[in-house]
């Protein structure tokens, strides 16, 4: 199994989720993060001063998938989250040793 972490732009979340549902992904976990990267930070005005906000709001999606689905999932995310503009984000894929469904105790692929 693979553990996929994707950092995307916040307003792309709904599109990504739909794309993944289309692939049969049954679950995923989302959190709000702040990203630092090539994308130039916004500038906030504060009493006439300007503050560069170096951290940008991003969404982190975590999905555990079976090995054979991993590639498709990564592709789907890339398609759905792409705007072509800097700051679109990254996808990180690593090995996942074991999965357990808390409710039933089912393990690995059956637990996804």
């Amino acid at each position: 199994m693979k553990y996929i972490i994707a950092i995307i732009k916040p307003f792309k979340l709904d599109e990504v989720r739909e794309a993944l549902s289309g692939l049969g992904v049954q679950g995923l976990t989302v959190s709000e993060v702040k990203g630092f990267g090539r994308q130039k930070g916004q500038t906030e005005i504060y009493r006439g001063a300007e503050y560069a906000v170096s951290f940008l709001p991003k969404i982190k999606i975590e999905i555990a998938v079976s090995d054979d689905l991993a590639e498709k999932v990564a592709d789907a995310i890339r398609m759905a989250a792409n705007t072509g503009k800097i700051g679109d984000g990254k996808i990180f894929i690593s090995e996942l040793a074991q999965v357990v469904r808390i409710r039933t105790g089912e393990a690995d692929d059956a637990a996804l």
Partner: protein
Amino acid sequence: MHKMSRKITALASTAAVTATLWCGQALAQTAPAAPAPAPTLDKADTAWMLTSTALVLLMTIPGLALFYAGMVRKKNILATIMQSFGITALVTVLWGIIGYTLAFTDGHGATSPFFGDMSRFFLAGMGKDTLFPGSTIPESVFMMFQMTFAIITPALLVGSLADRVKFSSLMVFTTGWLLLVYVPIAHMVWATNTGLLAKWGVLDFAGGTVVHINAGVAGLVGCLVVGKRKGFGTENFAPANLAYALIGASLLWVGWFGFNAGSALTSDGRAGMAMTVTQLATGAAACTWMAVEWIIRKKPSALGAASGAVAGLVAITPASGFVGPTGGLIIGLVAGVVCFWGATGLKHMLGYDDSLDSFGVHGVGGITGALLTGVFAVKGIGGTSGVLEGNFAQLGIQAEGILVTIVWCAVVSFILFKVIDKTMGLRVTAEQEVEGLDYSLHGEIIHD
């Protein structure tokens, strides 16, 4: 100018001396306040003044508390509210016991231009039916109305020290500052029979000098003594929740009707005119600050609009019972631009860390307003003409009043800040500052 500068020099030295002298003197003096003419109680005036008192208290808690709390980082929100709240509680007690009597009784002898006497110590002799001399309202109501001014002034100046001042030291400072700066300046300006500036003919309807210049200058002195916030200029100090700041500014605006129109001490046409010019100046200043920022920074910020409104409110304060609608509009227009510069250009130019711009808005706006009062005063409204009606001298008198206030306030505030800094320490430790004052000083945090 020569005469004036002599007066000022004299005062600079007098300030510290008198401030230490009055205690003994005042305590020895127990004669009653000057006998007043005999107006009778007017229940309508009283109704309006009761209301105004509530409105001005609303300005500090929760108005100012929120205005300031909205501009700090999340870890300091509660501590910032506590500064306003704690000052409110403390000054209430101090004012009742000794502040009021020293500010608003006539006083005796050499100190009487600066301080009152002790005849109202613990509000002694202020019965249910006692009227404030020369007014149609109970003295209790006048005392309360003035208390709300005494509360907001130190609460305003803390803005300059935000995010780094110790709560304990602030309480000690407030005690000293109330009695040695606020009280004498209020007496000088508003004690009609004996006050120094009142006799000079300085116009200050609702506290341009007493409240705003005073708070602004003390704030500036304070932020110079206490030093810059850790991370100033390198870290992002963006306000955590400007919604709070805008609620606060809104409540300041609404409450200011009590501040300015209430300063008429009666519910008549002058109060109505004071309310009118207050509103016009505030709207105009908010518009100009927005406009300037829009032009310079490309976007009109919410904090800018709020700051503009406060700038207008500050600047119209001394003028409110003296000028007409057009004067009010112009004062607002000017204040919006000048205070924008005060809170941005001036501050960055000189490089001090006036965190929430007590000086940039209240100091600069107060000075602007006090001067323009001398320009736009209309005889038919407040009984005194300004420059536009040919009374050029008034502008000089206003300048004198401003200078006396600045000098007295700066000198005594500086001494107070320094003494506290050397003894108990004015500033939290670096760790506390990083951890946030909410937790380090009050043991509480905002959880969501």
